[in-house]
């Protein structure tokens, strides 16, 4: 041991239930050597060179937060789009304010154009609403903002894209171009509108080239990695590895970001099953084994991901009777369940942990049936079969999940952001209120974690906000408590973003709590989540994170 660093704190919550409280933690070579007080760790300090680092001496230190289900690579590019819609929208940096008028939108675009250092990169914005923001944009209007930086704005109803002159050049259209949906002024000059599929596709291609061009994947990872770090996250998992650019390019982007110090996270790449099978066929298990060998404690592959259901906010999940309030508004794809056992079996037998997406209670039934079939064919202990999202469920399903040895990674954010909306729209009051039944999981003894799914759904990424949702279950109206019996304690919620989240990823032997031998990943907070009013959990500021013993600020 070359050198021990001792971090002191106002309070350390170790999340080791046997030794929950401490005031100092000793770290060497990225691992925890000892946790307790400066006095208690003295036997180690006497034997090795050491230093005391008291930069966190008035802070609260916790194990690094773990969000076990995100899509940083996939969503990073989308979040590069600027929001110019009329209403508030959740965003990585909290809520983005709505812009009430066209002038406000133009001002916002002007500010963006002014700070754009590279005129080659277009400003890409979304959410413009000509109906409520006082009329359409057009080319001349946007040229006044900038006639050098390309500007591309996509509206949401009806489908239309607005472009300025430099953007028209990028798209490659001029007054002589022929095409349906390419708008013109009365004098025949292009007005910068692209309406309907063909025209919008044409206008989008150069932007997609920029957004997805060489280096864009890396930029996305860096950007979203920063968002996750700011929320106190030190470990996350990408649940659709392979879907964005393919397995190797995505792996390399992460590898490089870590090597160059721009991604202060541990990252588990969970392959998207259809893509893995399509790409590697019979060699899929060998590929995963090879990648595991190549990976290390920062970047590695883990498990396998199945998407067998739709999403909660878009109301495409599959539900049991009595189904949707208005069947007409439901669009539920049928998953070929008859071969699901066959699809999962090779991974199940090989001991690869299965993560299966299930939002609706009917999908949950099917998933549990599948798990039961797997257990009958090839019984396993400690398989950690994980239901991802677990939005609509019954207490009975929680018990069955427990009986089959499964666990749940739960999107709790919807309880606050969406549940009340869906009580009269889609799911009905009962299932909306009981969205994400953590209390039932706890009573049934099912291990669970909280995740954000960031950012394939319009919710923020913040483990403390997730814990706040889980503890309070306050609806979007800011006062109604939804399904009070499904609330969990502050301690349980904090476990669900630390040690229990590590368990979900089968890394609780190395991550998730502050124990001797584990990786020295910490989240540093300005207030104590065990001391504040639980209603203010989400307001606690993240001061810093420590990854493998090193502060990331």
């Amino acid at each position, binding site marked *: 041991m070359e050198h021990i660093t001792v971090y002191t704190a106002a309070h350390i919550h170790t999340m080791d239930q046997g030794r929950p409280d401490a005031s100092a933690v000793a770290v060497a070579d990225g691992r925890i050597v000892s946790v307790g007080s400066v006095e208690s760790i003295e036997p180690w300090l006497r034997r090795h060179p050491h230093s005391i680092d008291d930069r966190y001496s008035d802070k609260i230190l916790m194990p690094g937060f773990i969000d076990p289900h995100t899509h940083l690579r996939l969503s990073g*590019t*989308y979040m590069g*789009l600027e929001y110019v*819609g*009329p*209403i508030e*929208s959740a965003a990585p940096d909290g809520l983005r304010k709505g812009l009430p008028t066209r002038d406000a939108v133009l001002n916002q675009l002007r500010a963006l154009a002014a700070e754009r250092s590279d005129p080659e990169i277009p400003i890409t914005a*979304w*959410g413009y609403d000509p109906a409520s923001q006082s009329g359409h944009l057009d080319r001349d209007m946007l040229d006044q903002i900038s006639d050098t930086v390309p500007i591309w704005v*996509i509206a*949401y*109803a*009806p*489908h239309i894209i607005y472009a300025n002159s430099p953007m028209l050049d990028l798209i490659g259209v001029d007054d*002589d171009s*022929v*095409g*349906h949906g390419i708008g*013109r002024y009365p004098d*025949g000059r292009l007005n910068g509108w692209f309406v*309907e*599929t*063909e025209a*919008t*596709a044409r206008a*989008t*291609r150069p*932007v*997609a080239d920029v*957004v*997805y061009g060489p280096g864009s994947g890396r930029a996305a990872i860096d950007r979203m990695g920063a968002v996750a770090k700011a929320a106190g996250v030190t470990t996350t998992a990408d649940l659709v590895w392979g879907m964005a650019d393919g397995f190797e390019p995505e792996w390399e982007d992460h590898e490089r970001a870590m090597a160059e110090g721009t991604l202060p996270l541990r990252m588990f790449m969970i392959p998207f099953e*259809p893509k893995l099978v*399509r790409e590697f066929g019979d060699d899929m298990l060998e590929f995963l084994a090879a990648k595991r060998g190549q990976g290390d404690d920062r970047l590695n592959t883990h498990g396998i991901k199945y*998407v067998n259901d739709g999403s909660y*906010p*878009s*109301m*495409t999940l599959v539900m049991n009777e009595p189904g949707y309030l*208005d*069947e*007409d*508004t*439901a*669009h*539920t*794809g*049928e*998953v*070929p369940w*008859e071969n699901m056992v066959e699809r999962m079996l090779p991974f199940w037998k090989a001991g690869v942990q299965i993560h299966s997406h299930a939002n609706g209670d009917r999908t949950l039934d099917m998933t549990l049936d599948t798990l039961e079939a797997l257990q009958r064919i090839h019984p396993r202990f400690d398989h950690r079969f994980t239901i991802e999202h677990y939005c609509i469920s019954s207490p009975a399903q929680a018990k069955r999940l427990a009986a089959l040895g499964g666990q749940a990674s739960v999107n709790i954010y919807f309880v606050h952001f969406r549940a*009340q*909306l869906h009580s009269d*729209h889609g799911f009905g009051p009962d299932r909306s209120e009981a969205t994400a039944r953590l209390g039932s999981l706890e009573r049934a003894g099912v291990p669970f974690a909280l995740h954000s799914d960031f950012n*394939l759904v*319009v919710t923020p990424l913040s483990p403390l906000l997730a814990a706040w949702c889980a503890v309070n279950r306050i*609806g*979007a*109206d800011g006062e*109604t408590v939804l399904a009070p019996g499904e609330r969990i304690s502050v301690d349980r919620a904090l476990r669900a973003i630390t040690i229990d989240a590590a368990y979900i990823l089968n890394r609780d032997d190395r991550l998730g709590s502050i124990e001797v031998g584990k990786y020295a990943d910490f989240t540093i907070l300005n207030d104590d989540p065990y001391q504040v009013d639980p209603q203010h959990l989400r307001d606690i500021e993240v001061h810093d994170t420590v990854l493998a013993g090193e502060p990331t600020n």
Partner: protein
Amino acid sequence: MSRPTELRFEELDSAWSRVIATLSASRQRDKAKSNDRADLDVTLLTGFLGSGKTTILRHILEHPNGLKIAVVVNDVGGIEVDAHLVGEKTSGRISLANGCVCCALADDLSHQLETLARIGDCDVVIIEASGVADPISIAHTIHETNGCHLDGIVAVADPISLEEQFGNQHTALLLRRQLQAAHLVLVSKADLVNEHARQSASDLIAEAAPGSRILSLENGQIDVTVLCGAADRGVSLTNSDNFSNFEVVSTVISPAGPWDPRELGKVLEHSKHQLLRAKGWFDDEHGSRYHLEVVGRRWSIEQSNGGPFQALVLIGVNQADVDAAAVTLRAITKR
């Protein structure tokens, strides 16, 4: 509970999904994708549950006029084609004796379409999109899928429940989106309502989506020529005499042009022509050949490496509409 922004949030969310779909679709496409007409024609059929899509699909599958049609639906069992036509049948796929096939919508539509295009045993694909599915997002996916060509978006509206659907704030939003995205609107169940109801349905549609090309159907009877562009490949019209309740009329402009493609585009963009479809080839004044395709409001003009001939077929519901469109087009030459 006070939720003043309820609908807007919904819109925002769907807008977000659409932005994602639009961007993702754009990157699926090979840089080298050609505008080769050999691409598989894909028609997108939208409409609410119960609007009559299934009846139309069943009719098309039973009367494919020699085309091998692949229908992609949510629920394969729901189609219930004539039992004597059904060949091989699994839960995800039904093969028909006439060469048509009905398959279940997969979670990766783009991949499913690419596979259909690659295998090449069908002439045309019709995708049924129901409920909340945003037609524009799906259209983008089709448009940007390698080997595929978005032929048109066709919406089915039920004249009996249309007014109620417009009255409900949730369905109204989706309905308007469907109608505005559509290139052709089919009003189903014309046999079940009187002329007055049919007219008021057309008025409601025209109000929600100005400029819509609207067509009434009885018992889901529609000529495959109207639904699928591939049916008139090579500019030959199928014989629609079989359906006494449904007739299309057509006229041929030959020779077509010479037209300035830009002028023609302007005319098509601003014209209120009532054509259901038009297809063919024309020359410009320099003798270059172009391919023209019209599906209701949608049109495309693309340079073509020597189309087979210089002629254009126009298809509409009544002769007056078709003649008027022909006059407008012929007039371009004189400019």
